[in-house]
């Protein structure tokens, strides 16, 4: 149909307009030619014009003051939020006490035995070692605090997510409502979720748990809905043909058929909950994240690493065990499964009781290794020898300095120098060329909202860091991805590295960059690059490897060189994957650049942290809103058009 309608004007329009991109550009140019002189005449200035901003900080301060004043008296808080808050505190406390009562031996035994039943001997051993390592590093109590918070948050996220997913999976209307919301939540940086929760619940464990739930529930909901909707149609029909009731269908067919997605959802929810539980130390989560946060604040890399390593170990263990549970689904269950579970339970109880009788509930102090000091000595050595003045290559601090002065500064100044309307125009052009007019409109509105909120300058500062980090990420990521796609050996070498890197919480990446580059904007960008790189490499590699082998073979049979194959066959055919890689890269980089506010990244991330630290919620909330807008804008600008693929199907 589309080709028929397009064919008619083709004879009239000049040749270059045949391309849809050119037509879009022409339309935008016309649009701009009318609006820009108007806008420029009215509000001529480089930055966002003051006349177009709305001061929201004053009403926000009032709201926040009102909430603080009424938190203990207003019925809404007394009878609703208060109960939620109390319930959360109670649950976390209860889990924490259970973990402490089980003692370190009991907890380690329980974790290992669960891993044994779910994932086999090797992971069980790994789990045990990981937990013991947490104790050895002197981090047993913070680890248990984080674990307690995680358990409660994950349970709540799974319940909330599964219910939402059930609704979206069974009702088309709910799906239409929920899907865009969940999609958007997925691309927003974790930091954006902190402030609204703090506004209602104040700083503390309830706020941390709820922020974690809000952040971690969407993947569960999405995957539940996906699993329920993706069930084999013929199986459902067969089940219906046997005369099942709707409830029987749900319980005996739809949910079991979605088990893979449900477990994947659980896995993702756990990983995101861990990531957020660590970040939520900023709003009073305590535990490991808090240790990292405090250590980073005083640039104590050793202490940060001592708390960071348990986080990484927890992440890897949780990811592997839940992942292995998903892989085992297809297999036949062992005949004596239940007995073995009973053994596991018995073993746990025995170890816990033994620990209790031996009076060794707390991790013995004598068994801790002082980890921070040698690390700090190493860092000091690095500071002395590698920071600057290394012949030929220069030092790490020099690199950071050069990156700041030659890349970040000019980019920031350039962006801030650009007239505000031209920024909007660039956003519109990019978004429309890559996506549809709808995504372009959302992107422009989000960008304009930033201006209206009055945080144009810091947002452009953040944007400049994002752009610089994304550029580095894409260059490195595409190069590595192409290399991995072309050579099996490179891919084999990369895979375990990528696996570990992709499971680590965002927060952890800040530790090594602070050790290497000190504080500032360059380390924030570096952490963002390291965080986003694995996803970009992985998507690129997969995209290139999934290129139709027949197309590749035919080009080879025509005598194309490897470079010609790459340029003329693989890259064009992998275009959707590459665009997805860009999109993911941008979203992930933004998340960490914002967190970089903790290590001197400045701009919006700093505003959030500072707002929290000073109790100035208005500033923080405005910055949080700007982060949301920025995330929305960046995601929409890089969102490839979906229409084409839908039509093809």
């Amino acid at each position, binding site marked *: 149909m589309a080709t028929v309608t397009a064919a008619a004007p083709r004879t009239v329009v000049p040749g270059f307009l045949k391309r849809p991109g050119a037509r879009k550009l022409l339309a935008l140019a016309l649009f701009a030619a009318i609006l820009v002189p108007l806008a420029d005449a009215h509000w001529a200035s480089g930055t966002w014009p003051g006349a177009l901003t709305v001061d929201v900080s004053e009403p926000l301060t009032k709201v926040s003051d009102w909430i603080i004043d009424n938190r203990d008296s207003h019925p809404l808080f007394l009878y609703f939020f208060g109960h939620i808050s109390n319930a959360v505190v109670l649950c976390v406390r209860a889990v924490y006490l259970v973990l402490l009562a089980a003692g370190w031996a009991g907890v380690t035994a329980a974790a290992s035995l669960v891993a044994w039943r779910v994932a086999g001997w090797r992971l069980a051993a790994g789990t045990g070692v990981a937990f013991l390592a947490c104790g050895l590093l002197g981090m047993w109590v913070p680890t248990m605090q984080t674990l307690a918070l995680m358990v409660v948050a994950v349970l709540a996220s799974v319940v909330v997510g599964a219910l939402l997913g059930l609704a979206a999976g069974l009702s088309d209307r709910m799906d239409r409502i929920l899907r865009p919301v969940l999609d958007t939540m997925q691309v927003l940086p974790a930091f954006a979720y902190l402030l609204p929760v703090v506004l209602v619940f104040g700083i503390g464990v309830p706020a941390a748990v709820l922020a974690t739930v809000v952040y971690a529930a969407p993947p569960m909901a999405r995957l539940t809905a996906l699993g329920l909707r993706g069930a084999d149609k013929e199986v459902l029909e067969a089940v219906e043909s046997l005369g099942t009731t709707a409830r029987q269908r749900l319980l*005996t*067919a739809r949910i079991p058929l979605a*088990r893979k997605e449900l477990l994947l959802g659980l896995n993702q929810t756990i990983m995101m909950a861990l990531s957020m539980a660590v970040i939520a130390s900023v709003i009073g989560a305590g535990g490991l994240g808090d240790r990292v946060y405090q250590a980073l604040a005083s640039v104590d890399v050793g202490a940060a690493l001592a708390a960071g390593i348990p986080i990484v170990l927890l992440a890897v263990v949780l990811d592997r065990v839940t992942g292995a549970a998903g892989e085992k689904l297809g297999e036949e269950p062992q005949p004596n499964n239940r007995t073995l579970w009973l053994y596991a339970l018995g073993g746990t109880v025995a170890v816990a009781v033994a620990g209790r009788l031996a009076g060794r509930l707390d991790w013995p102090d004598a068994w801790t290794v002082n980890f921070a000091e040698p690390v700090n000595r190493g860092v000091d050595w690095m500071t002395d020898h590698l920071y600057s003045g290394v012949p030929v290559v220069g030092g790490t601090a020099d690199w950071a300095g050069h990156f700041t002065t030659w890349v970040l500064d000019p980019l920031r100044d350039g962006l801030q120098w650009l007239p505000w309307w031209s920024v909007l125009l660039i956003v519109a052009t990019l978004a429309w060329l890559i996506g549809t007019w709808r995504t372009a409109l959302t992107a422009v509105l989000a960008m304009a909202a930033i201006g209206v909120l009055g945080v144009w300058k810091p947002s452009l500062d953040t944007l400049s860091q994002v752009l610089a980090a994304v550029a580095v990420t894409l260059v490195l990521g595409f190069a590595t991805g192409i290399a991995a796609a072309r050579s099996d050996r490179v891919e084999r070498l990369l895979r375990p590295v990528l696996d570990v890197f992709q499971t680590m919480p965002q927060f952890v990446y800040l530790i090594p960059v602070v050790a290497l580059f000190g504080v500032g904007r360059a380390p924030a960008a570096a952490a963002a690059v390291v965080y986003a790189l694995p996803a970009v490499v992985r998507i690129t590699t997969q995209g290139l490897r999934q290129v139709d082998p027949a197309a590749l073979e035919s080009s080879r049979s025509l005598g194309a060189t490897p470079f010609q194959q790459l340029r003329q066959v693989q890259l064009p055919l992998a275009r959707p994957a590459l665009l997805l890689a860009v999109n993911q890269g941008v979203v992930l980089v933004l998340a960490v650049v914002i967190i970089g506010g903790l290590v001197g990244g400045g701009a919006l991330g700093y505003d959030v942290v500072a707002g929290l630290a000073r109790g100035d919620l208005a500033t923080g909330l405005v910055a949080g809103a700007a982060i949301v807008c920025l995330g929305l804008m960046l995601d929409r600008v890089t969102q490839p058009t979906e229409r084409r693929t839908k039509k093809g199907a």
Partner: protein
Amino acid sequence: MSTTTSTATPETRKPPTENPVFSVENLWKVFGPKAHTVPADPDLAALDPAGLRERTGCTAAVRDVSFDVRKGEVFVVMGLSGSGKSTLVRCLTRLIEPTAGTIAIDGEDVRAMDKTRLRELRRHRAAMVFQHFGLLPHRTVLDNVAYGLEIQGVGKAERRERAAEVVAKVGLEGMEHRRPGQLSGGQRQRVGLARALAVDPEVLLFDEPFSALDPLIRRDMQEEVVRLHHEEGRTMVFITHDLSEALKLGDRIALMRDGAVVQLGTPEEIVGSPADDYVREFVRDVPREQVLTVRTAMRTASADEAGSGPALAPEATVSEAIEAVARSGAPARVMENGRCLGVVDHERLIGVVAGTERPVAAGTEQAKEVV
């Protein structure tokens, strides 16, 4: 019996059948906006598929189809993909809701059934076997077969026992505890078949059950169905796009094209006297001597022929007659109850094989709506 209550116009009335299992009258299934207006409006109903889509945006998957399924027979619905045969069989138990027409099972109006009654129908009276098996991947073979009984609320021990019997019947002993993922395609379809059999339904509905299987396995499975039908005499409605499968299994065949039944008759009638050029084209490559019987190929015997020559039953195929005639060198007699109905000689038999002679088939049950 249902024909007496139906509002069939004279030209769509079909010859009444003694106690049909399924009785379908003027059935329509139209997909698209305002689908129900199409069957109701004679102008729209008369349009061809392209015209209908242009006028209304609708597609008629099943157009004004009527037939009876007799007790104990294998009724084959045959047509190319997109001819509406799968939609038709789903309409029988309202897995797809028909747009217009009547369906009766044992005289009971299916379209008037409420949810509970319909569920009863699906649970006890009609079970279906699917092209891609539709097995539950997380259950063992035994639990898959017992699934229908589980739905009905049969206790665990009893349903497992009954399932085990059926599993043995379809030749899957020893595989009770495998998962569908560990079985071959043919074995999976045996599970599908067993699941349908386990609920002991009155009718088995097959939706292209063997299309996804290899040719050799397909032949095995066809023979399995023939065997089951011989043993149990269960009524079957069998959907297929494979003509040889239809001829092999079907007691009667309804040939569909663009949603309508073009011809309905025994395999012999369809091959021997195609209703139109479409059917003729369809059956052109069928080895006629294997389908046509001597009853249709014979001529009246002269007095001396009636006394001698090899004797054949009227149901014997022409290829069997060729063998007998070639061996004896004389025309063969077609004998029924000791009476000579006629004879087949070289000339008649070669005429059948060459397709030059069109034997007039007696009582072809022409489809009412010939497109």
